[in-house]
């Protein structure tokens, strides 16, 4: 009887065998001058997988994210995004960036454009959509992140949380299959953090692939399929979020979790 129930109820581990690989990183090294910021990074992210990157400041989390969308050039190793290898060739970079949406810690909204114009800008200039169509798409995503009422305002007239949600909408407008987040809530006041995390949770449930650097461990526990712990430019430990938080195997992760939890 007991055995039957065990077979009937599959283990709660989500997506143990991802259907396809979204991001594949092999032996990635990144130097700033003589300083090595990333050392032999191996990481695979499946399609639809939610991966959280954490680690102390200066451990190379941003560098890793920024190498994936070529805001930093990697020095060796390979990065593949949905099958395309990211070389330093402009056409490859564009091909890879087309798959990716990026959300920065500091929002990086265009301050002289309204919220709506921020969202339609790339649609009109990169995808060359007519204004009406671009507006429709932008309004749809602004509604998804709950800032539809602010469309005519300028970013500086919005709270930090609203600005970050606009930045998320702006990235989503280009319909990326993978979203990269670099500490999206670190620049926010505590009241705003929740609103942004809720949007990201909703987003995670849509089946989009996410790689997210964050110190919000509660959020990580709720949404992550996998957590990756980095230190000094290396991946020290990774695992499903359950194992990661309840049974860390390395002393360094244990120490880190004790600090942030």
């Amino acid at each position: 009887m007991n055995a039957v129930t065990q077979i009937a109820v599959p283990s709660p581990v989500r997506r143990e065998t991802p259907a396809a690989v979204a991001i594949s990183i092999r032996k990635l090294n990144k130097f700033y001058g003589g300083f090595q910021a990333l050392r032999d990074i191996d990481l695979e992210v499946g399609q639809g997988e939610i991966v959280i990157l954490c680690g102390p400041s200066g451990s190379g989390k941003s560098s890793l994210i920024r190498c994936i969308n070529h805001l930093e050039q990697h020095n060796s190793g390979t990065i593949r995004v949905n099958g395309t290898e990211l070389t330093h060739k402009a056409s490859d970079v564009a091909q890879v960036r087309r798959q990716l949406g990026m959300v920065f810690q500091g929002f990086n909204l265009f301050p002289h454009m309204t919220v709506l114009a921020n969202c339609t800008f790339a649609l009109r200039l990169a995808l060359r959509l007519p204004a009406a169509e671009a507006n429709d798409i932008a309004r749809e995503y602004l509604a998804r992140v709950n800032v539809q009422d602010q469309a005519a305002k300028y970013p500086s007239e919005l709270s930090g949380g609203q600005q970050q949600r606009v930045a998320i909408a702006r990235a989503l407008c280009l319909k990326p299959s993978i979203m990269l987040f670099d500490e999206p809530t670190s620049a926010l006041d505590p009241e705003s953090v929740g609103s942004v995390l809720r949007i990201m949770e909703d987003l995670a449930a849509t089946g989009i692939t996410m790689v997210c650097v964050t110190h919000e461990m509660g959020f990580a526990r709720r949404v992550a399929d996998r957590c990756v712990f980095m230190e000094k430019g290396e991946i020290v430990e990774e695992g499903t979020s359950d194992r990661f938080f309840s049974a860390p195997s390395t002393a360094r992760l244990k120490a880190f979790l004790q600090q942030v939890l």
Partner: protein
Amino acid sequence: MPEMGFVQQLGIGALMTIKVAVLSYLLALAIGTAFALVTLRRRLVVGFIWQVYASIFTGVPSLLVAFLFFYAGSGIVASLASLVGLTVTVDISPFAAAVAALGMVYGAYLADLIRSAIQNVPPGQFEAAKVLLVPQPATWLLVILPQVLRLALPGMTNMWIVVMKDTALISLIGLKEIMAYAKLASGVTKEPFIYYVLASVFFLGMTWLTYFVSRRIESWSERGYKPVVKQEPAHAL
């Protein structure tokens, strides 16, 4: 009382002043923008050319530069042309010498101004445009330029006023602008006060007009930015 004939001449001179000032400033903007862009990244050869250019044109008084262009200009052009095997004889007019001198001198100042404005645009703005796949020309024109303009406007306004006032010196190379006519009228009528006052009123009027227009442009360029308590623009050099 000023004589209408001389006042009319002052008007013609004023138009010439405006023409020289506007053309010099446009040339300065072009030179300044070009140098600002090519010196953004530290590159040895370009950096060296810039250093030489900047030290000459910010070190030598603009009037002297105008004299050099006016008196030695045809020689300079001829010898440059002979380097590539051409024989060219050009007459440098006072007008051309004035525009070239003021344009090149203030181009050197504007280059510094524009470069530092570009460097003060947060790098995140370039990065956001990149990840959004916005083509480079559109990024520069629609994302960076408006922010550069906002940062550089106060300095650019002052520079315009300085250029305009410097045209008064250039009368010394024989350019028939407002100062030249004021001097002429004063000499003939033996009433220097009235014509110099009129010329001064012209420059004052232009300065006021400049501040009025620049306020407008500034408040437009500040769209989207939180209003901050701003200092009055510092007086031009």
